[in-house]
C-alpha cells in the first residue's frame, strides 16, 4: 500500500451493499484477502463487475479448458479480444462471437445495435478491418405480438448499426420457439482481416507508457450492465430499464478508421475496447495480461454528464470507447489522428510496474487493487451438475404411437412455411450484405462466402446451433452443431479452419443447467477435436432465465472455412436441367427432435440423430475434393426438415431461376416420414453434370462415402416418387415450383403481417 491509501474513503460497507453488488460472503472474504483491508465502495463496485459471471467466467472456466485450442493455423487462441487464424499470404482472419441477449430483451433495437457495435470493436481492437458480420437469433413464436416486436426491433437494430459501419452482414440463422419468448437470444459474429505480423493485443506493456482514452464521452449508461448480464430476469428487472445504452454507429465508424490509422503508423503498444465493465475491465485486463499496473486519473476522462463519481466513471458501459497504450512521445500523433476524425481523446494515466490498478481523482487515490486479482484471480466454481428428472421423459419417443405421414406434399409445404425453415429474406434484405464488394455468396446459401482482395482466396462463414437437439441430448446437440457448421462450409467448398462459440444457457446455479452446459461443451470439444477445428474465441451467456424458466441449452457456433481458389465455390441451388442429383451419406430412422415432429405433431421429444464423427469427417474431405476439382454444380446439406425440404430448397432458392427435379427414392425399411423428413446428419444433396458422373462415383466410392442416385434436375415440377420393393410406388409428390417458392419465400413476411416487394 502506498501512502495515499490513507486518503481512501472508508465508508462502512453493510451486508446489504455487498449483496446488492451480487457478491457472496465467500467472495467478499476473498476480496479482503487480496486487499489486506476492507474495500471502499468504489473498489467494491470494481470487484463486483470484474468478478461477475459475465467478466470472470467463474462457472464456466474450468469446463472451457476442454476445447481444443491449438492448431497449425492458430495465431491467437482464446484469452484475447478475439481469436485469429492464419489464412496464408501473410494474412490472419480475426473473429469472435458475442451475445447481447439481456439488453435486446429490454430494448430490442438498441440492445441488438450495441451488440453489433461491441463485436466490431473486439475485431478492430486487434488491428483487423472487419469485413463480415453474421448473427444468430432466437425468438418466441411469431403469433405473439410481443415476439414480433422483439424480432422486428432486433433486426432493425442490427441493420442500422452494421449498415452504417459499412460492414456487410452476410449471413446468420434464426429459429423460433416459445421458450425464447421472455428471453430472446441475439448472438453476433464478426470477422476481420489483418496482416499477420501486425496483430495488436490488449497489453499494457512497459512501465512509463502512456494510457489514452479515446471515443465517446462517458455517461451514466449501462452502469452494472455486466452484473445484469449475470443475473436472471424477473418482472422487477423492468426497473433496470434506464440503464439502456444507445449506440452511435457513426462515431464507431470514425473510431474504426482512426484505430486502423494508429496501426498503419505503428503508434500503439496495446489497445482494448471498453466493453462490459468499461474502463475498469479494459484497464485491469490490459495490465494483468502484461504483468504491469495502470495508474489513471478519472478526472481526465471525457464526460457527457455532470457530477459523475469515480464509481460511475469506472463502471459506465457507454459505447464506442477504447483504451490505448502508447510509448511516450507517440501520444501526440495519436491525438492528432483523433482530431482528424473528430474523436474525443485524452491521456488519462500511465503504465506502472507495481501491478496495481490505481485510480485517482485529481490527487486523491480512490481505488487501488492488484490488477491480476481482478482479471485472473476471481472465484472459480465447479458447480454441482446433474441431469434433470425430466430428461428420460424427453428422450423417450414411441414412434409406434405416431401415425406415419399420409400426404407428404402437404407436410412439405407446411415445413417450408415454418418460420425456422422459411427464407429469411425479409431479414437479410434489411442488411447491407454487399458493401465492401467482397461478398461472393450472399445470404441464402449454406454458408456465406467473402473473397479476400489481393489474394486468390475466399473465406466461408456460418453460424449454427440446434437447441432442441441440445435439450434432448446436450452432448449430441453440441457435436451436431459443430458437424452442421462444418458441413455448411464444406458445401461451399471451404476447409473449416477455426471456430468461435457463444454458449447461451440458463442459471448455472441450477444443477440441471450446469449439466447441460458441461455435456454440450464436451460434445463440442469432442467434435472439434475429431474434425480438427480449433476453438479460438468464444463467449458464455448464463442466466438466460425469466421468472425461473430457463431457455433450452443453446450453444451457437460461428465457423470459418478457407477456400484457396475463388473458382471452386459452390452454392446450394440447382443450376442446369439434366444435372444428376445424388445424395451423399445415408438416411436413417432419425425423427427425434426434428422440425417435422414439432410442426406436424407438436412434439419436441426423442433422441436427436446419432452422429458418427468419422463418417462426417470422411464426407467432408470427399466432398471438398469433388468441389476443388470443379465436379459439383450444387451442394446443400440436409438439416432441418430433412431430405424433402433440402431438395425443395435446392429447387427454389436460386436467386433468379428456380428448377424442378425428377427424383425416385427407394423405400428401404424406413417409415415414410423418417425417409422424407428425418434429420440424419452427415448428408449432402449434390447435383453433377452428366459428363462428370463417372468420375464423381469413382472418387466417392473410393472414399467409402455412401452415395445414391436420386434423379435429375428439370424445368418442370418437383416430382418425387418413393418406391418400395420391386419398384412398387409407395407414394408420389408432385408440386409446382411456384407453390413451394411462394410458401418458402413469403411465409416469414406473412406471419409478420408486412408486405414484401
Amino acid at each position: 500500500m502506498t501512502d495515499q491509501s490513507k486518503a481512501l474513503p472508508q465508508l462502512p460497507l453493510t451486508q446489504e451493499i455487498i449483496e446488492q453488488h451480487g457478491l457472496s460472503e465467500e467472495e467478499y472474504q476473498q476480496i479482503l484477502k487480496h486487499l489486506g483491508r476492507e474495500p471502499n465502495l468504489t473498489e467494491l463496485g470494481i470487484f463486483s463487475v470484474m468478478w461477475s459471471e459475465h467478466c470472470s467466467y467463474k462457472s464456466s472456466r474450468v469446463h472451457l479448458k476442454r476445447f481444443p485450442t491449438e492448431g497449425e493455423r492458430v495465431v491467437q487462441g482464446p484469452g484475447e479480444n478475439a481469436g485469429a487464424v492464419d489464412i496464408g499470404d501473410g494474412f490472419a482472419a480475426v473473429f469472435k462471437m458475442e451475445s447481447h441477449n439481456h439488453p435486446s430483451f429490454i430494448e430490442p433495437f438498441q440492445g441488438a445495435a450495441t451488440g453489433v457495435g461491441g463485436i466490431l470493436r473486439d475485431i478492430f481492437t486487434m488491428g483487423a478491418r472487419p469485413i463480415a458480420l453474421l448473427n444468430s437469433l432466437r425468438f418466441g413464436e411469431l403469433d405473439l405480438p410481443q415476439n414480433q416486436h422483439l424480432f422486428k426491433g432486433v433486426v432493425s437494430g442490427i441493420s442500422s448499426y452494421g449498415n452504417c459501419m459499412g460492414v456487410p452482414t452476410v449471413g446468420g440463422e434464426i429459429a423460433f420457439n416459445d421458450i425464447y419468448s421472455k428471453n430472446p437470444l441475439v448472438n453476433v459474429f464478426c470477422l476481420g482481416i489483418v496482416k499477420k505480423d501486425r496483430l495488436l493485443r490488449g497489453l499494457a506493456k512497459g512501465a512509463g507508457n502512456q494510457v489514452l482514452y479515446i471515443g465517446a464521452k462517458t455517461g451514466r449508461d449501462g452502469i452494472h450492465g455486466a452484473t445484469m448480464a449475470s443475473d436472471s430476469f424477473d418482472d422487477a428487472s423492468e426497473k433496470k430499464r434506464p440503464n439502456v445504452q444507445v449506440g452511435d454507429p457513426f462515431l464507431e465508424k470514425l473510431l474504426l478508421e482512426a484505430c486502423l490509422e494508429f496501426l498503419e503508423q505503428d503508434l500503439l503498444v496495446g489497445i482494448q475496447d471498453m466493453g462490459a465493465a468499461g474502463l475498469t475491465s479494459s484497464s485491469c485486463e490490459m495490465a494483468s495480461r502484461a504483468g504491469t499496473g495502470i495508474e489513471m486519473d478519472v478526472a481526465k476522462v471525457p464526460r457527457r454528464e455532470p457530477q459523475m463519481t469515480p464509481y460511475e466513471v469506472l463502471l459506465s458501459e457507454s459505447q464506442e470507447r477504447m483504451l490505448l497504450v502508447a510509448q511516450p512521445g507517440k501520444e501526440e500523433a495519436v491525438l492528432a489522428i483523433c482530431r482528424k476524425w473528430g474523436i474525443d481523446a485524452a491521456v488519462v494515466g500511465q503504465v506502472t510496474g507495481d501491478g496495481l490498478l490505481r485510480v485517482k481523482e485529481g490527487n486523491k487515490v480512490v481505488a487501488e487493487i492488484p490488477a491480476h486479482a481482478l482479471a485472473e484471480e476471481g472465484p472459480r466454481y465447479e458447480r454441482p451438475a446433474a441431469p434433470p428428472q425430466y430428461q428420460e421423459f424427453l428422450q423417450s419417443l414411441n414412434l409406434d404411437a405416431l401415425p406415419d405421414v399420409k400426404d407428404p406434399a402437404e407436410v412439405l409445404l407446411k415445413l417450408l412455411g415454418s418460420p425456422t425453415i422459411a427464407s429469411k429474406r425479409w431479414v437479410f434484405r434489411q442488411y447491407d450484405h454487399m458493401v465492401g464488394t467482397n461478398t461472393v455468396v450472399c445470404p441464402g446459401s449454406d454458408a456465406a462466402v467473402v473473397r479476400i482482395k489481393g489474394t486468390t482466396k475466399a473465406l466461408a462463414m456460418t453460424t449454427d446451433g440446434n437447441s432442441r437437439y441440445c435439450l434432448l441430448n446436450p452432448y449430441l446437440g453440441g457435436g451436431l452443431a459443430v458437424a452442421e457448421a462444418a458441413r455448411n462450409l464444406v458445401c461451399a467448398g471451404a476447409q473449416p479452419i477455426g471456430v468461435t462459440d457463444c454458449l447461451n444457457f440458463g442459471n448455472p446455479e441450477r444443477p440441471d443447467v450446469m449439466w447441460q452446459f458441461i455435456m454440450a461443451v464436451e460434445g463440442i470439444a469432442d467434435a472439434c477435436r475429431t474434425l480438427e477445428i480449433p476453438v479460438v474465441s468464444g463467449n458464455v451467456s448464463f442466466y438466460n432465465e425469466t421468472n425461473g424458466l430457463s431457455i433450452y441449452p443453446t450453444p451457437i457456433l460461428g465457423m470459418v472455412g478457407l477456400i484457396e481458389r475463388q473458382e471452386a465455390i459452390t452454392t446450394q441451388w440447382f443450376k442446369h436441367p439434366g444435372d444428376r442429383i445424388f445424395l451423399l451419406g445415408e438416411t436413417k430412422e432419425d425423427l427425434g427432435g426434428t422440425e417435422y415432429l414439432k410442426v406436424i405433431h407438436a412434439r419436441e421429444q426423442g433422441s436427436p440423430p446419432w452422429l458418427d464423427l468419422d463418417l462426417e469427417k470422411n464426407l467432408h474431405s470427399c466432398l471438398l475434393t469433388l468441389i476443388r476439382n470443379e465436379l459439383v454444380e450444387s451442394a446443400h446439406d440436409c438439416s432441418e426438415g430433412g431430405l424433402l425440404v433440402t431438395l425443395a430448397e435446392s429447387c427454389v432458392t436460386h436467386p433468379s431461376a428456380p428448377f424442378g427435379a425428377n427424383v425416385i427414392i427407394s423405400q428401404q425399411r424406413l417409415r415414410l416420414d423418417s425417409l422424407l423428413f428425418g434429420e440424419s446428419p452427415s448428408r449432402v444433396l449434390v447435383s453433377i453434370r452428366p459428363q462428370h458422373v463417372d468420375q464423381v462415383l469413382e472418387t466417392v466410392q473410393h472414399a467409402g462415402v455412401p452415395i445414391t442416385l436420386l434423379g435429375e434436375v428439370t424445368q418442370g415440377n418437383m416430382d418425387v416418387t418413393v418406391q418400395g420393393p420391386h419398384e412398387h410406388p409407395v407414394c408420389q409428390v408432385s408440386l409446382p415450383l411456384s407453390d413451394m417458392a411462394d410458401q418458402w419465400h413469403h411465409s416469414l413476411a406473412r406471419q409478420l403481417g408486412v408486405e414484401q416487394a
Partner: protein
Amino acid sequence: MKVKIFVTLKNGILDPQGRAIQQSLQTLGFSTVEEVRIGKFMELDLNETNTASAENKIKSMCEKLLANTVIEDYRYEILET
C-alpha cells in the same frame, strides 16, 4: 380534434443525432450552439369530441407505439377544433 405529441429522449440517454448536428452547426459558424437534443413531433387528427376519453387514448397510443418509453418521454397538447 388536433393533437400534438412530443417525444424526447430521457435525460442521460445518449443522443448521437443531437451531437452530430451540434458539431456541424459549430462548423458552420454557429458557435453559440451549446447543445442540441433531437426528438419527434407528431400531429394527429383524432375523430373525438370528449377530451377526457381522447386523453386516455393518446396516453395509451404513446405508451404502446409512439414513444419507446424505455428511453423516451412523451408530452402532448390537445388543440380543440
